[in-house]
C-alpha cells in the first residue's frame, strides 16, 4: 500500500498549485510596492504594508466588513427561526396544500432574483427600503429561506413524530411543542444552515450592488469593487482590501472546516 501511494502525491501537486495560485498572487500583489514592476509570481523581498494602510485608512473596507457582518448576523438568525418554523408543518402535515407550498419554495430556490430586478427595484423604492440594512436583510432572507426550509424539512422528517405527538396529547400547544421539543433537536442542522446561508450572505454582491446606493452603507464586495473600479486605481490597495474582505471567512473555514464540509453534504444529500 505504502509503495503505491507516491503517485497520489504527484497528482496532488498540480491540484494544490491550481487552487493555491489565486491566493498566492493576491498576496504578492497586496504586499508589493505600487512602483515594483516585477512579476506577480515573485514575493517582494521587503516588507511593505502601505497598500493595507491605504485600504484601511480609506475606511471603506472596514465599513464594508462591519455592514456585511450586521447584515449576515440578522439574515442568518431570521433564517433559522423563520425557516425552521416553516419546515415544521411541511415535514409533518402531508396535504396537497403543503405539497404546493413545497413546490413554490423549490421554485424560489431556482430562479435568479436578478430576473425580477426591475419590479424588485420598484418594490424596494415603494417600501423606502433602499440603502437600508433591513432592505438587504429582507431580500437575502427571502431568497435564502428556500434552501434552509429544504434542509430543515428533510431533517424534521427524519425525527420520530412520537415525541411531538406525545407532547400534543399532554396538551402542549403547537408553538411550545415546536420550540421545546423540535427546535432543540435541530441543533446539528442549524449549524449547517448557518454556515451555508452565512457564506452566501457575506459574499453577496447582487443585492448590495443594486440596493445599497448610499455612501453610508456598504458591504465587503461593494467596498472591494470600489477599489477596483476607481479611476486611478491603486491595484495594491485593491488587492489589500480583497485580502481583508476574504480573511474573516477563510479563517473561520480553516478552524471549522469539519462543520463547513458536513454542511455542504447535508444540504445536498437528502
Amino acid at each position: 500500500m505504502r509503495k503505491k501511494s507516491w503517485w497520489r502525491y504527484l497528482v496532488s501537486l498540480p491540484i494544490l498549485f491550481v487552487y493555491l495560485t489565486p491566493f498566492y498572487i493576491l498576496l504578492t500583489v497586496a504586499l508589493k510596492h505600487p512602483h515594483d514592476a516585477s512579476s506577480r509570481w515573485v514575493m517582494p523581498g521587503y516588507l511593505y504594508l502601505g497598500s493595507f494602510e491605504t485600504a484601511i485608512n480609506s475606511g471603506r473596507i472596514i465599513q464594508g466588513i462591519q455592514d456585511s457582518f450586521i447584515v449576515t448576523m440578522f439574515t442568518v438568525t431570521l433564517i433559522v427561526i423563520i425557516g425552521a418554523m416553516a419546515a415544521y408543518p411541511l415535514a409533518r402535515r402531508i396535504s396537497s396544500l403543503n405539497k404546493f407550498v413545497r413546490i413554490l419554495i423549490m421554485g424560489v430556490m431556482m430562479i435568479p432574483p436578478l430576473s425580477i430586478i426591475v419590479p424588485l427595484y420598484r418594490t424596494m423604492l415603494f417600501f423606502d427600503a433602499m440603502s437600508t440594512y433591513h432592505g438587504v436583510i429582507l431580500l437575502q432572507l427571502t431568497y435564502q429561506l428556500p434552501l434552509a426550509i429544504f434542509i430543515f424539512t428533510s431533517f424534521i422528517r427524519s425525527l420520530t413524530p412520537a415525541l411531538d405527538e406525545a407532547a400534543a396529547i399532554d396538551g402542549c400547544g403547537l408553538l411550545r411543542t415546536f420550540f421545546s421539543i423540535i427546535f432543540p433537536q435541530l441543533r446539528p442542522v442549524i449549524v449547517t444552515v448557518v454556515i451555508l446561508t452565512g457564506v452566501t450572505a457575506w459574499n453577496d454582491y447582487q443585492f448590495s450592488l443594486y440596493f445599497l446606493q448610499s455612501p453610508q452603507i456598504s458591504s465587503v464586495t461593494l467596498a472591494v469593487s470600489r477599489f477596483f473600479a476607481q479611476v486611478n486605481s491603486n491595484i495594491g490597495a485593491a488587492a489589500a482590501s480583497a485580502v481583508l474582505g476574504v480573511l474573516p471567512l477563510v479563517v473561520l473555514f480553516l478552524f471549522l472546516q469539519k462543520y463547513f464540509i458536513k454542511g455542504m453534504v447535508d444540504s445536498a444529500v437528502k
Partner: protein
Amino acid sequence: MRSRKRINLFYIPVLILFGVFVVYPFIDGIRISFTNWNGFLPTYNYIGLTNYINMVSDQWFHNVFRNTIIYGFGSTIIQQIIGLSMALFLDSKFKARGLVRTISYLPIMIAPLIMGYIIFFIVQFRGGALNDLVGLFGMDRLDWVGVPNRAVTVILLVNSLQYMGVSMVIYLAGLQNIPNMYKEAASVDGIGPWNTFWHITLPLLAPALSASVVINLIGGLKLFDIIRALSPAAPSSGTHSLVTFLTYQYFNIEQAGYSAAIGVVTFAFILIVSIVVIKLLDKMEVVL
C-alpha cells in the same frame, strides 16, 4: 394530527415574504415588460408585445442566451467530471488527503466577485501572472479575456473550478456511504476496477449525482459576479449572461421595459430547465 391544521400558520411569514419580494414583483414585472418605461421617469406607455418581439431579432439576446447555456451546462459537466475524479482520488487514504480536500474547498469561501478580480491579476494582458508563464516558454502573450470566446471559456473555467469543491464533497459523502462489501465482492469475482466503477460505484452514486447536478446547474445559470468582474459592462464583450444583460438594459441604457421582458423570459427559462432536469434525474435514479 387531526385537529392541527393550524400548524400551517407556521409558514405564513415565509409566504408573506415570498408574496412581497417574489410573487408581487414577478407580476409587476410582467406588466412592465409590456411598457417602454425608461426606469426613472414617472411616465411610460404600453407597447404590447414589442419588447418580446425585439428580443427575437436582438443579436445580443441570442448571444447571452447561448452564453447562459454554456455557463449553466458547461460548468455542470466540468464540475461533475472533475468533482467525481477528485472524490475518487481522495476516497482512499493517504497523508496529504486532508490538505488537498481543504485547499480545494477553500475557494468556495471567497466571494465570486473577488475571485473574479483575483483571476484578473492572473489573466491580465500586461503584468498578468499567466502571461509571465507564457513568456517563460517563449510564446506570445495573449489577451486572455479580450476576445469573446476565450473570455467565455475563462469565465466558465473559473466558475467551474471555484465551485468544484461542492460536487467533490457530495460525491465523497456518496462514496463513503457505499458499503465496502460491494467492492470486496467485486474484487473477489475478478471484476476489474473500471467495471467496478462503471457497474457498481456509479449506480450507487446516483442520488449524489442528482444533488450535485442540480446545485451546479442552478449556480451556473445564475452566474453574475464573475462576469461583472472580468468583462466590460457593454454586451458586445460577448460574455454576458441573461442576468448581466438585463441589468445592463435597465441600469446602463435605460430600457427598463425591455429589461423586464428579458427577466420574464429568464425566469421562465431557468424554472423550466431546472424542472426538466430534476424530472430526468429522478427517472435516472429509478432506472439505476
